[in-house]
């Protein structure tokens, strides 16, 4: 079920790295239970926006509000998956998840097993994550992000270096999560995979949101900012 009230609000967000402005006054509101895809060329500010939403990049100016709280206060409601796996290569998937579960105050093995099963991996797999294929690593990384059952997911390039079959499998998983009521943000260069699944495509250019479309159709050059 989709709740149309805005759960994330971004006001005049500016993020500078030295003299380079990665975000130039981004303002937007995002509703609950929707699947957003953030698109744009390299350097458009997609990853910086996602990191600012997750609380990993501190805005130079402007503010981010998630469920009426700061990103840091809302951390239990947020799951974050980056391009790197955010997992220890020397430990198995289960060992990794058991450690991260403790950070969220989750005890016992069952929630970890459940998270691993939900991304269609085997919790009994004893191999260290460093020996996983890229597709398996991405799925285990997704399991880590959903371990504490967050309401909002921020996923940065979840399909990169993943074969088409694994990517489609991941898209199916994400669709299921959105249908279960989670709000999902995906930064990707493979937006075609998400056509028909995503609710909204957010187009970024030089640190600004230049368009928001319901389908994967490139906006006209010079399109006004919403």
């Amino acid at each position, binding site marked *: 079920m989709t709740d149309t009230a805005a759960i994330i609000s971004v006001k005049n967000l500016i993020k500078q790295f030295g003299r380079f402005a990665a975000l130039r006054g981004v303002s937007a509101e995002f509703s609950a239970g929707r699947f957003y895809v953030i698109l744009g060329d390299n350097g458009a500010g997609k990853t910086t926006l996602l990191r600012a939403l997750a609380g*990993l990049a501190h805005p130079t100016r402007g503010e981010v509000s998630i469920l009426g709280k700061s990103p840091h206060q809302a951390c239990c409601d947020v799951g*974050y998956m980056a391009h790197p796996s955010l997992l220890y290569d020397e430990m198995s998937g289960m060992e990794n998840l058991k*450690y991260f579960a403790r950070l969220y105050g989750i005890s016992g093995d069952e929630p970890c097993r459940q998270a691993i099963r939900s991304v269609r991996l085997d919790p009994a797999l004893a191999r260290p994550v460093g020996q996983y294929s890229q597709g398996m690593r991405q799925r285990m990384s997704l399991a880590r992000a959903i371990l504490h059952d967050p309401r909002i997911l921020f996923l940065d390039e979840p399909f990169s270096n993943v074969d088409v079959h694994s990517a489609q499998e991941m898209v199916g998983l994400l669709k299921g999560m959105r249908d279960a009521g989670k709000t999902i943000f995906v930064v990707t260069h493979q937006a075609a995979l998400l056509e028909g699944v995503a609710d909204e495509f957010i187009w970024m250019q030089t640190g600004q949101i230049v368009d928001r479309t319901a389908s994967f159709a490139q906006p006209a050059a010079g399109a006004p900012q919403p």
Partner: protein
Amino acid sequence: MNSLWPITLASLAKDIRLEWRSKDAINSMLFFSLLVVVIFSFSFDPTAEESREIAGGLVWVAFLFSAIVALNQTWARELRNQVLDAYRVSPAPANALFLSKAFGNFILVTLLEAVMAPLFMVFYNLRVLGAAWELIPVGILGTWALVASGTFFAAMSIRTRMREVMLPLILFPLSIPAIQSMVEATRIILSGDGNPRFWIVLLLTYDVVFTTACLALFETVLQAE
């Protein structure tokens, strides 16, 4: 509610497991420390009396240089695959991470000291003339002084280029009061010449001040970009 100690213990257990599997830090530390002992023993040919005077300095310099290896390794693990970001987005307290890293380094450096101290005694023909038990508080307080401030400054330097060089540049000057206390206390105990209490209290003071400061500032260091 995530409390400090369960997460500290979970992070410490994870670090010990990773070190047990890779043995990255302990092998390098042992090898480096052994080299220092052997090279110094060939470079100088001191009498037993001279050994007691210089051994305090040699032993702590060897441990300090070896500890740098562990300190750099501690945070390098968290940078691989950007795992540190997973900690930063979690509700876990920043100080739990700092304490687990400091305890982990303390265990590693203490293990190193336990292996290397007898070798030092043999290579330098040392015999303790003072109260030998006093070496225990000096060892514990001295090791904590190295690892607490070292863990903090290693965290500060992880995002800098040439971080392996940056850490000693920041750590060594700030550790001078602690190093002087360790060296003097060890020299006094080995030679039996005087009372090391002043230096032990100074070391304790250094530990309390630096541990408090590190705990107060670590969240800022962890959340820095």
